[in-house]
């Protein structure tokens, strides 16, 4: 399929349009709220919340006997919340640490959810068909009414986030200072956590409970690489989330039997990988290049300084020195020859005969300036 047809279908084909819109919405919401989850070091809490949502979905179906989006999402919301509450109370009332409580709640809720799911699937009720897509997600199964529900919930979550932006920033950066100036930090914590649960619930149908937390963490982690401003980070994260969501969902609905959740997660992982490697300042490639540059500079300065010291031990400024001596002085450092070549290129040193080097007058100036700088630093 060429791009033109794809664009045409995105606008006019019901299924494809619904899928793309749904994935876009879930990407924006989870990307924006995920930024806060990541900055508050609650990434794993998202994982526990999404797994904990499964029994809520199934119980909600058992009660209503319908797959209308709102009751199912409500069930997921309540269960996700209960899971979070369970983790908090375990940490508060027992000696069990946060990570253990998290793992414990996640597996208990998820186990209960799976059990209920297999139970429901044996019911002689055709309406349960497709409930298992909540495990790995099935964007192609999204209906227009699902997307509308997702958009309303997500829109509300984003509005609340924008409204309490200042308070949430304070909550994420300095909770005690926030409390000291009079904001009810526990209440704000509950509100933000609720919004994060909403973001998860919105994505469950398309991405599935197993991998939904990736949509919370990955866009935010990638966005952090590109900016040092909270507002920009949230915006970039939302953009990455929706991009990966749309691309992954469209891919999975065009290829038969391709689960949406894993496809979307692979897309966002590609974005993360790209950002980790190539983002300016924080990217690994960038860091490596900076490191190399610094190392070359330090090596060069070491050789320059050594030649200067050697020269100062001789009356004759033009007395040349063997590269072997310099190599011995920079044992374990290597790169002496390359440093000398670089110095020659800059006009700081010249080779008087094979393997014999001497500083030029501008090289001597440079070296004495270097020594003065170092003395100042030491002081």
């Amino acid at each position, binding site marked *: 399929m060429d791009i033109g047809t794809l664009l045409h279908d995105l606008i006019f084909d019901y299924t494809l349009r619904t899928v793309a819109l749904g994935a876009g919405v879930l990407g924006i919401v989870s990307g924006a709220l995920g930024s806060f989850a990541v*900055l508050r070091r609650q990434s794993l809490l998202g994982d526990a919340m999404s797994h904990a949502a499964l029994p809520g979905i199934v119980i909600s179906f058992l009660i209503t006997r319908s797959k209308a989006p709102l009751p199912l999402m409500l069930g997921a919301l309540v269960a996700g919340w209960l899971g979070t509450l369970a983790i908090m109370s375990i940490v508060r009332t027992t000696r069990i640490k946060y990570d253990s409580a998290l793992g414990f709640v996640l597996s208990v809720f998820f186990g209960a959810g799976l059990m209920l799911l297999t139970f429901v699937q044996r019911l002689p009720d055709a309406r349960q068909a497709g409930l298992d897509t909540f495990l790995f997600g099935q964007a192609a199964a999204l209906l227009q009414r699902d997307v509308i529900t997702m958009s309303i919930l997500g829109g509300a979550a984003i509005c609340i986030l924008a409204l309490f932006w200042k308070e949430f920033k304070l909550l994420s950066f300095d909770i*005690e200072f926030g409390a000291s100036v009079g*904001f009810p930090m526990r209440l704000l914590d509950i509100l933000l956590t609720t919004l994060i649960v909403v973001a998860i619930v919105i994505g469950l149908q398309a991405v599935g409970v197993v991998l939904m937390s990736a949509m919370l963490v990955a866009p935010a982690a990638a966005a952090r690489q590109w900016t040092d401003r909270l507002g920009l980070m949230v915006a970039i994260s939302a953009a990455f989330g929706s991009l990966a969501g749309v691309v992954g969902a469209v891919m999975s609905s065009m290829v038969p039997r391709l689960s949406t959740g894993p496809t979307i997660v692979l897309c966002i992982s590609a974005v993360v990988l790209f950002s980790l490697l190539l983002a300016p300042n924080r990217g690994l490639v960038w860091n490596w290049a900076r490191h190399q540059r610094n190392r070359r500079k330090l090596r060069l300065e070491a050789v320059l300084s050594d030649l200067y010291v050697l020269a100062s031990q001789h009356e004759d400024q033009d007395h040349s020195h063997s590269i072997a001596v310099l190599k011995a002085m920079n044992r374990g450092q290597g790169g002496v020859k390359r440093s000398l070549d670089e110095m020659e290129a800059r006009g700081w040193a010249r080779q008087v005969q094979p393997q014999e080097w001497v500083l030029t007058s501008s090289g001597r100036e440079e070296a004495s300036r270097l020594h003065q700088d170092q003395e100042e630093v030491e002081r």
Partner: protein
Amino acid sequence: MTDPVEKHPNEENFPAISVADLTVAYQDKPVLWDVDLEVPAGILLAIVGPNGAGKTTLIKAVLGLVSPAAGQVLIYGRPYAEQRRMVGYVPQRGSVDWDFPTSVLDVVMMGRYGSLGWIKRPGRQEHALALEALEKVGMLPFADRQISQLSGGQQQRVFLARALVQDAQIYLMDEPFQGVDATTERAIVTLLQALRKDGKTVVVVHHDLQTVSEYFDWVTLLNVRRVASGPVGQVFTEQNLRQTYGGRVAFLRNGADEGGNGGLHAGVAKDGTGSTSIIPDPGRTERS
């Protein structure tokens, strides 16, 4: 600001901070035990004591950040919740994530959030106040810097600027001198003196016993219980220090021994060369 700090009609008659019978316990372990403390307005007070003495907890209890098992705290005669605007807070520098994606100016403006109240965003006025405060701590050139690019001392000064824009009457500072460079230490001392000149009350958790008499008017010696509290000249004595730190203080005396217990403060303050000095035993008082 249209909402200036409302002064209590009898403000003059109340101490800036009064703490009565304060007991705080984490689980079953008491951190503060029956502490009474009166801080008169307009003084620079140092709180000193060994690690685990409850210095930070005392400050947090005053701010209502930890709930006491018993006792009460009054700010100018009224509970903290009614007097928030009168109190500025400088937490320990290490209590936040300095890799948080925000700028120096943004952090300083957080000091205005309390006055702004819900939802309202900082505007032009907050911007101006923040810049002014940054100037006072010598950090104006760093206003747009990302906070992770700051040195420890610079981070401390940003926190001080944030407290300054709170425009408070009382400042509570948790170890502002901890691990800062000489420039920052001088900046903090200058700032403390400026605050005192403006009639503010400043309470500082302090670690360096050598500078207590040089920087502060009053001192509170704390080790779970309050050992002593009062003007440095009267309270900062060898006997009180020994009682506070147990055997953990080494007293070094060089030159002429002045004898009496009260000589410590006088010795340090008079000639400044440290004819008498007190140094905590580094092996045991180092922070854990």
